[in-house]
């Protein structure tokens, strides 16, 4: 179904690139090369190392005047290094004197940081911003950039709710601020706030599609994560959840580069549920009957169930289907990319074309993307620069239903009956209704292979901008941007499926489209000036207008001639068709002022006035200010003589930001919608009005410190924040006699507070060996402070309650297993003598106590080794799946004495169940009744803390003289592993899971969710 054309095309391109290669003649004549090494300010550098790349043994150090001398051939590359400075590599050529200027390595504290509407150096920052470089995220075998952020920065919680290829990723920056609006950050790519929500209308379970997967992660130069109000307030009513600024690569003058990158690898699931064999399953069913004899006084024989079913539990030749093995596979993932960049003094370019192809580890899934980019910058006159960024791409997501839905693949596999084969002898799919297990509603392999569900997206993101220098101090930047998505969903449910047969529909299909066209016009003035006496001013003032228009259509049809068709034109009957549309707009005015005195005292203030079409007439415009100060103590005179601190900068910020995402475009209006009766259109009231509806506002205080030690060899950053969100957009319960259960209103209050800590440093910086390490950890507490109505039961397992965090579990609780009877000791919370949903109580939550990451990178000669560990601790998961595969023999629809029919198979951990009086265990006795089984009980609540080796990369960089000999500038080979090791006590497939990714309020359930994948890939980077 998917186009594979592009793969051979890229291989051909690769061949063309390789053909003209020829080995260069070596010029072996050795001579003396000398020169001086100095700093950018002209000071000679004594003690700098100068050596030959080809021969680590040959080397020297500079003398007191920075002078060196070394013997080398014309083909040699000399390497000049000094701690705290950027290492340089220079080809000798025919020169005999080589003078070298080493630049300070300002990568850590003085790096340039992208901020909203501008850039700043890190040392000038007064807010809290995390930066992630391209190196950290490049070439990872993941579909989208957000997946690569996991574990990289403090205060940023990244989680993949499932391993579904192309599925949405959850990112919460400094906690969840919202209950019913979105808690996801705003994504800004090269200055354009982009559409990042799920645009697909196709049902496939609890997982969203990821519109950020439309961007090629390798095009990214850097990612900045804005965390505190000082950094985010310039994004006003969209800044409360933090902002992710993505900057794509641009060309550099004078350096023409052609690069080819590829990797290919294989994936499988991180873990499998160890299920009982048929023999064990029958043994357990027989045990269930025997246990009931003891407790219920029945008189079942020791082979009660297996006799009725007609099996011998000791027969080694029983059908023994291992369902998890059947639905999962080892699958391929690969990426090919060609880039060209460079430029002259006046015009610079970066172009890329890439193809990413991921086959899903579960049959019936996959993700494919082809994307191209052109970033151009040109100097039109000495006072005018123009540029453009254009990216166009197409993605195809092939998926199946999963999670808590009737015809999911994984969910139907959960308690799969091992006595049922996948295929009958005639090759047809076995029908679960012909076998004993009750759980399956259809054969999961049939669902995986024969259902079709595609989401295809074409997305274009384009910006044209001009920067006019008005005076030396003042410039004006104007830009016009377009974010266009055309998405179509196509689904087909086959004639042979149970879903179609049961519904007597003879196959049914659906085709839907979503088109989103968002435009943005921004203009801002930037002013930079330095006044005598050490006064520095840097200010930005601008406007922004954005409008989005979206159109939908959907057609459903049924009655297909055969399962070979997918298109609705062959269907006998169209069952529904509709089109609709919606729009929103945002008009904004913003400013930022930075003032510093003597590089010691730094002040920043920002503000944004946002008007939004989404909100009520009474509160259409809102103002979002912030202010911050920082003190660079190291620049004080009293710090001059100390050598320990290279930076010591306490800072404090306070500000207000808003959140208007995730709210209906017309939520403030009293509306009548259109429905129909007797094929005649009707008008029905659809919502009550609320003219006071407005954004959620978040007040954030941040107190932090940046510390640099030993010439910035160690950098440390710590922040404490307290973030209170008022005016929460909530569905307020209203009296049902009005015909409505709720209106959206600004009520309620939620708080996130926490401590973040980042440390990074160079542990070893030897000539051959370097080791740098970084560690981050975040302790964030989320608490609902105030609700209109306390203790709102959200669904069968979750509650929203004051004094508790978002994602709090509300379940029937127990006190373990009675060692005498083997029965669960359920807690009769309301004391009414029956155990039912009235006995639920708060039993934990899905929020971690802390989370973080630990990265290490080593280089040894040409080798580099990077590893990232990532962890969360203290979060709970409601492992709902166990309710099916830990049924312990409950004969849900059968009649125990006559024909027992359980849900199906059990996992092997159920072998530890209670068997006889005195057994101490947490798994109750088996039974043909449901005495010990409660679907929504804390019996399935588990600790989901984990430590994971997220990525491990081992690479080898060929030396410059070798690569130059074969006509390349750079050649790197590497292998990489993702999710190689996971340490956890969680018994489900993977502890990183969220069945209902679309709703954070009910986070932390696992029910038939596609698990995470482990990837091992091999790659090559070539630069010419």
């Amino acid at each position, binding site marked *: 179904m998917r186009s594979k054309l592009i793969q051979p095309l890229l291989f051909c391109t690769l061949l063309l690139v390789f053909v003209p290669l020829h080995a260069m003649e070596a010029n072996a004549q050795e001579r003396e090369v000398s020169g001086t090494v100095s700093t950018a300010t002209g000071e000679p550098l004594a003690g700098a190392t100068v050596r030959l790349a080809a021969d680590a043994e040959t080397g020297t150090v500079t003398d007191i005047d920075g002078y060196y001398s070394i013997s080398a051939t014309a083909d040699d590359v000399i390497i000049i290094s000094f701690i705290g400075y950027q290492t340089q590599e220079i080809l000798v050529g025919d020169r005999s004197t080589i003078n070298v200027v080493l630049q300070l390595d300002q990568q850590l504290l003085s790096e340039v940081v992208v901020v909203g509407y501008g850039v700043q150096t890190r040392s000038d920052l007064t807010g809290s911003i995390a930066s992630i470089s391209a190196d950290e995220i490049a070439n990872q075998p993941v579909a989208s950039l957000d997946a690569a952020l996991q574990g990289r920065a403090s205060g940023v919680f990244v989680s993949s709710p499932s391993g579904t290829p192309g599925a949405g990723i959850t990112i919460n920056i400094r906690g969840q601020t919202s209950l019913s609006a979105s808690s996801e950050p705003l994504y800004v790519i090269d200055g354009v706030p982009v559409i990042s929500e799920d645009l697909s209308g196709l049902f496939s379970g609890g997982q969203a599609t990821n519109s950020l997967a439309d961007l090629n992660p390798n095009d990214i130069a850097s990612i900045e994560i804005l965390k505190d109000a000082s950094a985010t307030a310039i994004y006003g009513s969209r800044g409360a959840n933090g902002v992710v600024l993505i900057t794509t690569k641009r060309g550099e003058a004078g350096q023409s580069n052609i690069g080819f990158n590829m990797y290919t690898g294989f994936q499988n699931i991180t873990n499998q549920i160890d299920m009982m064999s048929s023999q064990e399953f029958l043994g357990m069913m027989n045990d269930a009957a025997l246990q009931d004899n003891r407790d219920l006084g029945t008189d079942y024989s020791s082979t009660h169930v297996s006799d009725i079913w007609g099996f011998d539990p000791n027969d080694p030749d029983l059908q023994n289907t291992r369902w998890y093995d059947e639905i999962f596979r080892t699958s391929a993932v690969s990426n090919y990319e060609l880039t060209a960049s460079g430029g002259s003094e006046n015009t610079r370019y970066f172009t890329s074309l890439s193809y990413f192809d991921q086959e899903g580890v579960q049959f019936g899934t996959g993700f494919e993307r082809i994307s191209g980019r052109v970033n151009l910058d040109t100097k039109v006159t000495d006072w*005018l620069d123009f540029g453009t960024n254009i990216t166009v791409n197409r993605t195809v997501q092939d998926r199946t239903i999963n999670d808590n839905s009737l015809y999911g693949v994984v969910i139907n596999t959960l308690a799969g009956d091992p006595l049922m084969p996948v295929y009958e002898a005639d090759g047809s799919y076995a029908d679960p209704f012909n076998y004993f297990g009750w759980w399956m*509603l259809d054969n999961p392999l049939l669902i995986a292979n024969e259902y079709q569900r595609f989401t295809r997206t074409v997305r274009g993101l384009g910006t044209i901008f001009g920067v*006019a220098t*008005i005076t030396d101090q003042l410039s*004006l930047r104007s830009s016009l941007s377009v974010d266009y998505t055309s998405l179509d969903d196509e689904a087909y449910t086959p004639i042979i499926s149970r879903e179609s047969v049961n*519904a007597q*529909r003879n196959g049914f299909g659906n085709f839907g489209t979503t088109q989103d066209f968002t435009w943005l*016009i921004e*203009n801002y*003035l930037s002013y930079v000036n330095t006044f005598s006496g050490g006064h520095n001013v840097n200010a930005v003032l601008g*406007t922004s*207008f*954005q*409008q989005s228009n979206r159109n939908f259509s959907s057609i459903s049809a049924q009655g297909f001639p055969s399962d070979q068709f997918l298109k609705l034109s062959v269907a006998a009957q169209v*069952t529904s068709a509709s089109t609709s*549309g919606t*729009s*929103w*707009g*945002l*008009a904004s005015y913003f400013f930022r002022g930075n003032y510093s005195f003597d590089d010691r005292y730094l002040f920043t203030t920002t503000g944004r006035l946002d*008007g939004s*079409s989404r909100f009520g007439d009474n509160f259409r415009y809102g103002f979002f200010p912030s202010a911050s100060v920082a003190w660079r103590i190291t620049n004080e005179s009293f710090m001059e003589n100390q050598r320990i601190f290279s930076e010591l900068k306490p800072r404090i910020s306070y500000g207000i930001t808003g959140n208007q995402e995730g709210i209906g*475009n*017309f939520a403030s*209006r*009293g*509306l*009548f*919608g259109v*429905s*129909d*009766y*007797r*094929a005649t259109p*009707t*008008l*029905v*009231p659809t919502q*009550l*009005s*609320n003219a006071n509806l407005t954004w959620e506002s978040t007040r954030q205080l941040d107190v932090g410190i940046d510390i640099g030690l030993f010439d910035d060899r160690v950098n440390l950053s710590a922040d404490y924040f307290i973030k209170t969100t008022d005016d929460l957009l909530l569905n307020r*319960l*209203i009296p*049902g*006699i*009005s*015909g*409505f*259960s709720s209106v959206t209103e600004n009520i309620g209050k939620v708080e996130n507070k926490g401590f973040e800590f980042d440390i990074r440093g160079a542990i070893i910086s030897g000539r051959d060996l370097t080791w740098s390490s970084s560690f981050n950890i975040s302790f964030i507490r989320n608490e609902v402070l105030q609700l209109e*109505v306390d203790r709102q*039961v959200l669904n*069968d397992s979750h509650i929203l309650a004051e004094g508790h965090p978002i994602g709090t579990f509300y379940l029937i609780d127990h006190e373990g297993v009675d060692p005498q009877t083997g029965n669960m000791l359920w807690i009769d919370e*309301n004391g009414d003598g*029956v155990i*039912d*949903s*009235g006995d639920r109580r708060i039993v934990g939550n899905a929020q971690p106590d802390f989370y973080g990451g630990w990265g290490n990178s080593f280089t040894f000669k040409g080798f580099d080794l990077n590893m990232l560990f990532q962890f969360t601790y203290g979060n709970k998961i409601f492992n709902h799946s166990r309710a099916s595969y830990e049924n312990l023999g409950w004969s849900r*629809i059968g009649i125990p004495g006559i024909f027992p029919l359980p849900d199906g198979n059990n996992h092997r951990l159920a072998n530890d169940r209670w068997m006889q009086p005195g057994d101490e265990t947490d798994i109750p006795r088996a039974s043909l009744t449901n005495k010990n089984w409660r*679907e929504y009980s804390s019996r399935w609540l588990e600790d989901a803390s984990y430590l994971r080796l997220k990525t491990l990369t081992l690479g080898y960089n060929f030396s410059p003289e070798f690569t130059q000999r074969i006509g390349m500038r750079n050649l790197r080979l590497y292998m990489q592993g993702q999710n190689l090791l996971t340490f956890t006590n969680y018994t489900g497939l993977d502890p990183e899971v969220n069945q209902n990714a679309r709703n954070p309020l009910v986070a932390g359930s696992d029910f038939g969710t596609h698990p995470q994948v482990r990837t091992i890939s091999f790659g090559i980077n070539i630069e010419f």
Partner: protein
Amino acid sequence: MKKRSILLLTLLTVFLMSCDVLDTEPQASLDAETVLVDGAAAQAVLLGAYSRMQVDPYYGVHFTLSPDLAADNARYQGFFDSQLEVHSGTVPISNLWITTAWVNIYRVVNIANLLIAEVPGIDDDAFATRDRVLGEAHAIRALAYFDLLRVFGYHFDTSSPYGMPLLLEPIENNDFNLIPDLARSSVAETYQQILSDLNTAISLMEGYSTNTAMNYWAALALRARVNLYAKNYDAAFNDANDVIENGPFSLVSSVDDLFLTTGTTSESIFDLVFNDQDGSALFIFTFQRDEYNVNPSLTDSFEEGDDRAGLFIFDRGSDRPAKWSDSNNANNVKVLRLAEMYLIRSEAATMRDNNPNAGLADLNVIRNRAGLADIESIGSMDEYVDIILHERRAEFNYEGHRFFDIVRFNKLGEFFGREDFRKAFPIPRDELQIQTNLEQNPGYPTN
């Protein structure tokens, strides 16, 4: 330099340009104030009331199936707690069905309230059907309040204070702040309101007999049912008699023909119409999914030779009802049909006269249609109650009567060992939390 000035001027113009991006309008909705402007709009809003009766919590699924699930006709074998709770007979105050049923049935009440308040004043000379629209709105409000009373109120005890809160006006300005905090009216007051609405409806709709809407005869038939529940046996007899004798209806000769069709039948007094573009989910719940499977107690209860025992399909290991068998979900919900009028006339006559044989002829009409022989005579009133309960079960299973019938005849304890307070479902927790004047039914928790 000139070029530079022109360009800068252009850029500054753009800079200062204020775009009207905030003025967006919904594309598939209307602002509430601009809706009821003429007769055509009133008609559309009226049909909207039927459209809201079609939702899942009301006639579209759960109000139709729950009375069978809460009793002994259906058994729930699906996943959802809400239905398991209804099936087990212990419905907690947080139960999802009662929570949504309350709101959705009241939504229909509110549409009727809007029409009753606004239709007389609509300035439209061409609005010829004004009386009929108004009458229909009264009939719809009566139906909705009666359905609410059956689920949440003590409909079986006219001396009880546990009737429904009676909201009879539209919510002012559509503003949620102006929703009144109503206390419950007594059962007698609730019946009085329902009957008064029906009387108004009947007086306004004479001659209107479209059987896919709450027409004149439907209002009369509903009044027969309401009077039966309220034990006004004389009135119930007269209304049922009027429908049978004077209405344009006749019994369908075979029970198969009655159900294996997607259209109305000669027996339809009021069918809530579902078509393939606008389907119910009844087929999905009773057949396609494995949820509302037939309770073997129902299939075992049929007499030998009862044609109605054939209205089941055995598939995937269980019996499934055939009353909602159209796979496009286009089966109409038969809210009021003629067979019920015969059984109401039978029951009303028997109770009125305290004579177990007074309603025998009507009972036998329904038995004969199902292929059963006449019952010659009935020995006692107790025996009649058993027989009418059985007959109503055989005739109306999976049509939303069973639980209410068992409650009417005070058999809940005898049949299922349930306590008396469970004759009414609880007032939903959500409502109690925000309406201080709303009283819970006895026996149920209040929060």
